[in-house]
């Protein structure tokens, strides 16, 4: 029983890491209706830029600032050269454009910073904590804390600031938002920049876990089922979805894995998400689409 809880808790904490990536998706989807497959590459790009600058001896916070600035420039370029030209296209087209975008960012990141594997130490020791016989990872707890702060920051941004309110207006109805004088392009720029920021935070935490390398862009595949379960439009949903996916995939691997042959973690979340979808086609927190002919 103790082992069960240990796995469960470990899974929940791992789930938070998935949520971090998923939140970036949600932000962009909410504001611009783009299903941004390039979020994974943005995570890679941010982490690679950060760690490469850090290795050149630039102090931590300055590096953080420069990387953030880079992400803003990237967001600007994406808005200016891609989104603006794809206004009013079907969502599927936008999605495929982000596939192309993710190739570009991956190529760019490797062209600029090279393909070496970098280690990244955030100065958080990862000696395990014993708590009532259960093992807890300090690093994961720290990551969960960061995620919590991030969510609080984002909800403050969305609910209390002027920008945030216009963000919500755009998410609600683009045409109406335009009519009351909200600048759509500015909003997109902000949202992509914030998503870049979330990508940077996720990149640092994931990078510290995995080492900064090409595989970072693959975390996007872990975030997809999270989104599906949580719904594309809810930050809270992303968190809950992450927790569900994290816990269930770990439990499945440990308890079901040995029966049917291990290594099921790759597909299990997807099948789980599929089951959820069959019950609720728009995710737990998703908005139900109403179709008219």
């Amino acid at each position, binding site marked *: 029983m103790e082992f069960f809880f240990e796995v469960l808790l470990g899974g929940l904490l791992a789930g938070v890491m998935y949520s971090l990536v998923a939140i970036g998706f949600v932000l962009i989807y909410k504001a611009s209706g783009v299903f941004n497959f390039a979020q994974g590459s943005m995570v890679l790009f941010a982490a690679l830029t950060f760690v490469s600058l850090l290795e050149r001896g630039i102090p931590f916070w300055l590096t953080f600032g420069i990387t953030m600035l880079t992400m803003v420039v990237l967001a600007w370029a994406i808005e200016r050269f891609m989104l603006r030209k794809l206004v009013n296209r079907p969502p599927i087209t936008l999605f495929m454009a982000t596939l192309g975008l993710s*190739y570009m960012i991956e190529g760019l990141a490797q062209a600029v910073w090279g393909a070496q594997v970098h280690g990244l130490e955030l100065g958080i020791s990862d000696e395990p904590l014993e708590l009532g016989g259960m093992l807890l990872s300090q690093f994961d707890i720290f990551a969960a804390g960061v995620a919590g702060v991030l969510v609080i920051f984002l909800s403050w941004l969305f609910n209390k600031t002027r920008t945030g309110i216009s963000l919500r207006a755009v998410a609600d109805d683009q045409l109406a938002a335009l009519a009351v004088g909200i600048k759509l392009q500015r909003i997109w720029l902000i949202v992509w920049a914030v998503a870049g920021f979330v990508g940077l935070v996720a990149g640092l935490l994931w990078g510290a876990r995995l080492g900064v390398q090409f595989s970072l862009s693959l975390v996007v595949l872990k975030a997809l089922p999270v989104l599906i379960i949580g719904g594309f439009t809810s930050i809270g949903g992303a968190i809950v979805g992450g927790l569900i996916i994290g816990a269930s995939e770990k439990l499945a691997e440990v308890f079901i894995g040995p029966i049917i042959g291990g290594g099921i973690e790759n597909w299990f979340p997807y099948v789980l998400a599929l089951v959820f979808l069959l019950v609720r086609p728009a995710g737990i927190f998703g908005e139900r689409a109403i179709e008219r002919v």
Partner: protein
Amino acid sequence: MLYRESGQFISDYRADRRLFRLWQERAGFYLLLVFAFAVVPFIANDYWFSAILVPFLVLSLAGLGLNLLTGYAGQLSLGSAAFMAVGAFAAYNFHLRIEGLPFLLSFILGGVAAAGVGILFGLPSLRIKGFYLLVSTLAAQFFVQWVLTSVGWFSNNNASGVITAPPLLIWGRDFSSPAGRYLLTLAVVVALALLARNIVRSELGRHWMAVRDMDTAAAVIGIPILKTKLLAFAISSFFLGVAGALWAFTYLGTVEPHGFDLTRSFQILFIIIIGGMGSILGNFLGAAFIVLLPILLSNLSGTVLAGLIDPGQLENLQKIIFGGLIVFFLIKEPFGLARLWQNFRERSRIWPLRY
């Protein structure tokens, strides 16, 4: 004036139903076939056969399969490679376990097996739509790969999980030489492309397009959504399955489940984006583009730009170019290279006049 339609009157239904209505198009098509079957085998060398032509044909077929599903029936899929894998491994097992099964039949059976798996993962499409459907196809992608790696039976308990192609004997003739592989692949691809061209003109094809454009509206006018969508998944997977079998048997000669990973699915998706969604010709153009561009770039770097760019950077550059082209095509020409060809044809019809 190159294309003169005047004087070509269609006076019966048979003529109206022809694949190519203008004699110029028919002539061009037959010339192309003669060229591909009778001329190419004599002028191409081994390198062209095994490194360019065969992969080009196989990828065209795979693109065709995905195009039926995505371009015609409007169902986005990121699981194409999984269906290819099913086709390859099924064909291998049919050939291995059924003594004396004709080679071509094992390809077809491989395709049929893929179609079955396609239906299975297409079932959720009845209830979930759009991006949410991606999950179903991704589930197929990861699940199939896992099953093929972890169940040894599929690879005949090979220690490395790799299947290798048996000698390509058809009606006592050996097709194992590079030219033979090319001819075999070409024959299969041409036959299936003609089949596809006919399917999309049939009632079923028109149903697909209605569902693509708006499935609620399609349902309202009485199109059976269930049947239409599932057939789209089945037929698309059949094409992908045959393509997978060809990939394993006539192209690489050996393949492991990992060879059909998500990257391959993306590659096929890129073929239809660049080539043109909802077009048969587009798959060939897109596949040619995807096969040739990297080779062209790396050749250029070896000759023209020798020493200027190191090969690693070139690959990054290529990635950037690919990504950029995808975005470019989506912005400027959502119907891809096929539309460029069409525009050219339209223009040359009225040339030298402007209107």
